[in-house]
Structures are given as structure tokens and as C-alpha cells.
């Protein structure tokens, strides 16, 4: 069943790069980023996850994967901003850390990562006493951003090593082709095996799975 946003008794207020959604039913205020807001806005019950991802990519002018949409929908579901729709079955929800890592590696902006911070809006007595609890995802979001930034730094450090591995892999590959051309199959096999090993080392340094 396609996701359908809750819009009854929801007040919207835009900030420079986020949107505040105040739910008058549960008296919770949610601060969402553009990714989550666009998913919420476009979830009209007629679009599948893939269609939402296509729309988002067009609206945000950036590649928005199905995983990002699934994570955003899960955040909206937790915040009770979707109509009564159960989470899709047999769908493994992506982790925020994995998506952040893929965005870093792909050179895409981390601001695409779905973000939502929520708080209970106080009654007058609560506002005076300050005696109530605030639920927020902010801390987790900051931790994930920090992890993603560490990945970027690691990638940059590994870059030189990766370039060397790539050059070596290409040289071994070329050597293997030359050996094969003159009929030296044993040497060719050794060269191709070395090339594969170096290429996989490069992929591993970039956090990608081997060939």
C-alpha cells in the first residue's frame, strides 16, 4: 500500500533549510529537513517508493535513492505523520549510517540524509516549570554526520594508496594481455591474478565490495 501523509491539524512553518510541522493532535513539533518534507508532501497515496524517489531526485536536483525514501517514510511513520499505514513487509530498512556512507562515497551532499527532530509542545504549566521531556533524533543525527565525516577523511587518506593500487592493477592487466598475446598463458594468468588482487585492494580502501 502506498504511503499517505497525515495533513489534518498539521501546522507548517518554513525555516531557511528546514520545516517545522506542528501536530495539533499529539501536540508534538517536528523539525524536518527538505528530504523528509518533500517525501511527506508528495506522499498522496498514489505513488510507490520508486516513484517518490524519482520525484525527489527531480525536486531536489540530486540522485535520491529508494533507500533514502524508505528511511524518510520510516521517520514519518514514527512521528505519526503518515496515515495508518503499516511498515512494508519483507523490506529491509536501510541504516542511517549505511546511507550516509554511500552518500559520502558517491560525492553527494549529506543534507540528503533524512532528518527529523521532535519535541513535545508544552502546556502553560509545563512551559513555566520546564518539567517535561523532549524526544529528539538530533543526537543520533549528529553522531551519524560525525561518522560520515570520518569516512570522508579516511577516504581522502586512502586516496593516494588507492591510486597506486589502481595504476599497479592496470600495469599488471596490460602485462597479462601482452603475455597472453605471445602465448605465455602461465605468466598471463599470474599477471591477471595480481591485477585482480590490486583492484580489490583499491575497492576495499574505498569501502566497496570486491569484484
Amino acid at each position: 500500500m502506498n504511503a499517505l501523509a497525515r495533513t489534518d491539524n498539521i501546522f507548517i512553518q518554513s525555516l531557511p533549510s528546514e520545516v517545522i510541522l506542528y501536530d495539533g493532535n499529539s501536540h508534538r513539533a517536528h523539525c524536518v529537513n527538505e528530504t523528509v518534507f518533500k517525501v511527506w508532501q508528495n506522499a498522496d497515496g498514489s505513488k510507490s517508493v520508486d516513484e517518490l524517489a524519482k520525484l525527489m531526485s527531480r525536486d531536489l536536483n540530486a540522485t535520491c535513492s529508494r533507500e533514502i525514501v524508505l528511511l524518510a517514510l520510516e521517520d514519518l511513520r514514527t512521528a505519526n505523520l503518515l496515515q495508518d499505514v503499516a511498515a512494508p513487509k519483507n523490506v529491509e530498512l536501510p541504516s542511517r549510517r549505511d546511507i550516509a556512507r554511500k552518500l559520502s562515497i558517491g560525492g553527494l551532499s549529506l543534507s540528503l540524509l533524512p532528518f527529523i527532530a521532535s519535541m513535545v509542545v508544552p502546556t502553560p504549566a509545563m512551559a513555566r516549570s520546564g518539567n517535561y521531556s523532549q524526544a529528539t533524533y538530533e543526537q543520533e543525527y549528529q553522531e551519524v554526520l560525525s561518522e560520515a565525516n570520518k569516512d570522508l577523511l579516511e577516504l581522502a587518506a586512502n586516496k593516494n594508496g588507492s591510486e597506486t593500487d589502481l595504476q599497479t592493477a592496470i600495469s599488471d592487466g596490460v602485462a597479462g594481455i601482452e603475455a597472453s598475446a605471445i602465448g605465455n598463458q602461465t605468466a598471463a594468468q599470474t599477471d591477471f591474478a595480481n591485477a585482480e588482487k590490486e583492484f580489490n585492494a583499491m575497492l576495499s580502501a574505498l569501502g566497496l565490495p570486491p569484484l
Partner: protein
Amino acid sequence: MASQRISASVIDAEPDQLPGKLSCSEAYYFVARSCCGVCIGLRSNTPALLGILARMVPGSRCERPVEVMFSIYESSRQNTARRYEIAFNAKIAPARFRLVEALHLLRSYIQETVAILSRNFVLVHAAVVGWKGHAVLLPGASGSGKSTLTMALVEQGAAYYSDELAVIDENGYVHPYLRAPNLRSSLGQEAAKRTTASIVASDLCPEPLKIGLVVLSRYSEQANCESRTLLCREIFFGLLANTLAARSRPGLSLRVLKEVSLHGRGVQLERGEARIAANAVLRMM
């Protein structure tokens, strides 16, 4: 002494101008005040009590019909201790209180009612001072040290606007909520009297100011006044957590808080001693 029957609509004078002592069961004193655009009626059976009540509500005399009535009556003596009844419109609270409790409850009810009924203002639980043509907001719950920090700022030359409520209009300007500061006894009676006198002697009706700085502060004895700049959403949430009528007036509250968050700077301050913190805050402006 002969008793005098006085109806609510007739009396509209400052309590110390009224003659004689009236019978408690039949007559009362009354004054109407306009606070944040809401016309509030205050009523009591003694002029002294009415005077105390009137001083809790900043504002001018109101000529319009009263929208809501708050009353306090000296009702009885229990074992030589005086007891008081309070009422909101026609409803009398089903208990008798000591004076301090009764006034504390009434103050809370009045603030909540004004926050809910006010059409053009958002009330945020925050202290406010003026500095270099801009307002500094110090949101925080009761007992968080706002009044102490406010007094320290006033002593360093900031203009006193309020130590309890920030009255913010739709354009993001904060208006004064002038009431004698509510200082805890730890500050000392002398300090309280001194600051009250200087506030009363100063400009009694300062101009509305655009909010320049929002300071979310936390007190800790060992703190060194470390500060961190807040993001727009953090300022917004920090103010929303202290907004009195956010649930009953969400549209107005969100609009006004957005205006403040967009145009004001915000800092989180880990503060220790009030004088040092005040210095740090004024330097940020």
C-alpha cells in the same frame, strides 16, 4: 462601621483612593487593566489585596468591557492564620490558601489567560533586557536563574524589560512587561529593594525592541561561560519550549517564533556566576 454595598461596574479607581473599610461579605473593590490587549478585571474585598493584585499585572487602565475576572478574598482565620479564597470569573477554587500561595496561583492563572486570549502577542517565559537598541531574551523555566542574570545585566547598564515574560508581537518586536522582579530570597531583601527602586525610577515605558540575541543558559557552579552558537531550529525549539500558549494558539506562535529565529542570533551558554555571565552576554551583542 456601616457597611456599603458597591457593585462591580461602579468602582473603577485605585484602591488607596477608596474611603473606609467595607463589609467583607457584601462589597468589593475592583479595577480593570489592559494587558497585552486583554482587558482583565481584578477584584478583592480589601483595598490592600487589590493593590497587590494590580501590581502583578502590568498594563494601563482599561475602558473596554472586561473579558475575564480574577478575584481574591480574605475569607477566614484558621488558628490565627489568615486564609484567602481565589476565583476565576464565577468559579471559586475549592480550597483556602495562605496569601503567598493564593497570589502565586493567581499570577500563574493571569499569565496563562493573557497568553491564550491575546490576539496579537505571543508570551514566552523569558527574561528580557535591552542593549544597544536590541533586546536580549533569556528563556527559561521558573527557578532557572533568569531574574538573577537579569539583575546582573541591569546593573551593567542594560534596560530592564521583564524578568519573567517576553511579550513578542507579530513583527518580532518584544514589548516591556514591567513588574517588580521576582527575586528569590538568596539574593537578599536589600538587593531586591535596590533593583526594584532603580527600575521604577528609570524609563517606565521603554520602546519595543527587535530581538537581537536569544540566550539559552544553564547554570553550573564550575561553568566557565562557554558558549556555542545555535542553529535556527535550536533557537526555534528553545523558544517553543517556553511559549505559554503554543498549544492553544499554534498558528500565531509558530509565525512569531519563526520571525525571532530568523532575525536573532542564538547562543547556548554554560554559565556560572551571574556578573561574569552578564559581561559575556553583553559582549556578544
